[in-house]
């Protein structure tokens, strides 16, 4: 029953992103079968020898009293990771024919990821970009981080055109190694350019998930009459016949999706297509699958 709350149309009726995120994550988790792999209680995991520089607060003094050796006690909850959500707010993200537009859908996903990370004590951060970096919340697991993230997500508005090259060159300065990067975008760019731009993140030990957010009408457009289409980013226009949209365009977009997925996987990136008419749990499931691989 709670799955109903993961429907984008239902979530669009909720007032705040925090409530959306909480509804999504709780609903999603309630639907999962209990599994030791996905627990996030603070149960004991292992001892590790003290090395200079470790925090002294984590030394197990009882072991030190018995063995006079300093060991650090590590818990499963402390095997956390660093999540950085890259949210594309280009003008094309404002397109939508389903219950929510692409940007809102990406906001829900980003908020849910942040909430999920916060629940797992993971450090979460956010970069909002279009052709520039519009907002940046550094990853942190401190108290209040979740609200900063949700606030930044809430404030994100559709901007100008997408340009991966410029903001991603800038990301490299913010992204720390061995983290998890979730990129939420509609990826209207040549797959080669996208992969070549994002690939450096992977080289620095990060796991990268590409969430390709598309409206159902972008995947399968249908017009009964010839229409004049206006590009939402560069305001260019072109007349489109129904036959072309039915055949030629579909072939091109499917080819684009397939190429992007293939090249991403070839580059060690995770790729996931998010259809805005689908429930959000599919995106979360992908995130957790990737995170499990990191444990």
């Amino acid at each position, binding site marked *: 029953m709670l799955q109903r709350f993961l429907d984008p149309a239902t979530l669009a009726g909720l007032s705040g992103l925090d409530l959306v995120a909480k509804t999504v994550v709780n609903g999603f988790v309630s639907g999962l079968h209990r599994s030791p792999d996905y627990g996030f209680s603070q149960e004991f995991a292992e001892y590790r020898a003290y090395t200079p520089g470790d925090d002294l607060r984590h030394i197990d003094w009882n072991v030190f009293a018995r063995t006079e050796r300093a060991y650090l006690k590590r818990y499963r909850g402390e095997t956390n990771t660093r999540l950085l959500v890259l949210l594309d707010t280009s003008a094309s993200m404002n397109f939508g024919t389903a219950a929510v537009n692409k940007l809102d859908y990406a906001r829900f996903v980003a908020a849910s990821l942040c909430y999920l990370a916060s629940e797992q004590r993971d450090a979460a951060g956010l970069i909002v970009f279009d052709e520039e970096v519009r907002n940046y919340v550094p990853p942190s697991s401190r108290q209040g981080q979740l609200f900063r993230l949700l606030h930044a997500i809430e404030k994100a508005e559709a901007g100008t055109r997408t340009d991966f090259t410029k903001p991603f060159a800038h990301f490299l300065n913010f992204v720390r190694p061995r983290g998890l990067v979730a990129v939420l975008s509609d990826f*209207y760019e040549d797959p080669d350019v996208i992969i070549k731009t994002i690939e450096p993140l992977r080289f620095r030990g990060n796991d990268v998930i590409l969430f390709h957010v598309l409206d159902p009408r972008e995947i399968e457009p249908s017009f*009964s*009459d010839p229409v004049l*289409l206006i590009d939402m980013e560069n305001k260019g226009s*072109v007349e*489109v016949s129904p*036959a072309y949209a039915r055949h030629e365009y579909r072939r091109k977009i499917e080819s684009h999706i397939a190429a992007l997925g293939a090249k991403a996987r070839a580059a060690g990136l995770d790729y996931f297509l998010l259809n805005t008419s689908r429930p959000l749990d599919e995106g979360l499931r992908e995130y957790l699958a990737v995170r499990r691989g990191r444990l």
Partner: protein
Amino acid sequence: MGFLAPWFLAGLAAVALPIWLHLLRQHKTAPLPFSSLMFFERRTDSAIKHRRLRYLLLFGLRTSLLVLLAFAFARPFVNSTTVASAGGGKLIVLAIDHSFSMRQADRLARAKADAEQALSSLRAEDRGEVLSFGSHVQLMGDPTSDSETLRAAIHSIRESDDRSSFAELARALRSLAQSARMPVEAHLFSDMQKTSLPSSFADLRLGERVKLVPHQIASQPIPNFAVENVLAPRRVYDPKKVRIQVTVSSYGGPAARRRVALMLNGREQSSKSVEMPAGERASVEFLGLDTPYGLNRGEVRIDSGDAFPADDHFFFSVERSDPRSILFVHDARDTRGLLYYRTALESSREAAFTLDVATPQQAADSTLRSHAFVVLSDVTIPPGLEQSLVSYVRAGGSLLIALGPDSAAGRRVPVTGAAIRGTRYAGREGNRFETVIWLDSSHPATRRTTSWDDVKFYQTAAVEPGNSRVLAKASDNSPLLIETHVGEGRVLVFTSSFDNISNDFPLHPGFVPFVEETAHDLGHLDDRPANFAVGSYLELHTAREPGAAIDVLDPRGARALTLAESTRAQNIQLSEQGFYEVHRANHHNELVAVNPDRRESDFSVVSPETLALWQNTGQGSAAAAGTGVSERKPLDFWWYVMLLVLVAAIAESLIGNWHLAVDKEAA
């Protein structure tokens, strides 16, 4: 190229529909924002153009379908030139005026000579036709190329007393041009009287292939004096009361003094001199005519001294007879009705009737058939007299009944049997008198009696008219004058009396005309004129005497009717001036005077401008003049346009279905 029904071209406006559907409507597409046009290449535009081209094909088919349909209904045609006739000849018509005015000097002879000269232009491939015309056109033979035959036809034309009519000639030429199927060149030989023109110039229209060549016999008008009209009574009962009015006209003549003589049976009765103003009319009146009993030939002559003596005399016929008697039946005590009726009868224009007065008892013993008609003036009649009256009326006699207080007490009208519902008296209460509110002026008895308005009726009998004809009504809507047919005769019922007590009608001017006209009507006096114009018709057989043989002698003394015609002919046309004798089966003979139409006496000629206009109504001048005559005939080809419509409709259906199939896939 032209159109036989060009108003159907208005259907071309329907082309606006496909234009709107294909060109205007598709440009009204609202722009649709889309996330990215990354996958819409320039090839997309060409695809749309390609598709638009396909739509343009459909658009073109639909447009041409509508245009062709409008063209087909507009009946397009092209003029095709064909040879009009074999050999390229023409029909030369020689039209010779033989009207009364052509009797002047040697006009007809000159016309014939000119016509013979015109024959010289007849070529081997031409055909000739001779016709003479007055008020009607007479073809003198069939079209032929033989000059001698045509010459003989010209010679056979005789003078007539008819009047000429150019309208009749134009109509005949149009018919000839239509039937001849070759250009017509009409040579007109006439004195070109202005009076021969019709009132409407359109009647002179000649037609497409008629060329008119006028040959004017007389170019200048001549002054002429003529007896224009004579007004004389047809029947004379008292020679002293006869009055004859003569109108003498001067057509272009100078002021002159002319002697007018009144002749009867070839003997001059009297004569008068009249001063004729220049170009005007003058009237002469003769009082009294010493007329012997029977049919008499009257004539008025003038010594005109002009160049056309044929119109210096005017014929009229006069019949002298005794007046007929009217049996006036009244109560011996009532003398007032008799007094007023007798006085009115004696005051009439003609003394055509005398009055025999009798009481009902005396009338019952008398022979009714010897009387012109019977008057019952407020009497109660014995049954024997009523039976005699019924027999008299049924045999064709006439009866005038005045219903006074005595006769109205009988509760029914004698002879007709119409019910009398009572007698209305004017009283102190209500209406003091009744007046006439309606009068049937179409009836002979009432057509001259228009002054009944002030007549006051104090007593009237309320008669049920039934199916009888009501000729006058009182203000209370009761009938005042009723006509009833009984057998072959008629009964006229006046629902009041003639005694100046029940009404004051005898004191009014309308009473004398009423008595006179009812006497004329009931006494069967015909009112035909004393003379007729040449060309008019005389009625011979009526419904009452079908099959009776009638013999008619024309002015030359010859029989005008064949034996078969004498029993069947309804009428005869009076074509000659003079006296026609009509002998009927009941030994009732008539003498009919006939005179030429006096418009023929006016020798004013048609102006050259009018003649030129008349010639211009014929459009075949050039065609008739040429030798190789060609004719332009419209060739209607709407059927071929309809075939194109069919082809376009099939193509439109196929292409339209194709587009529809694409739409189904979209759905």
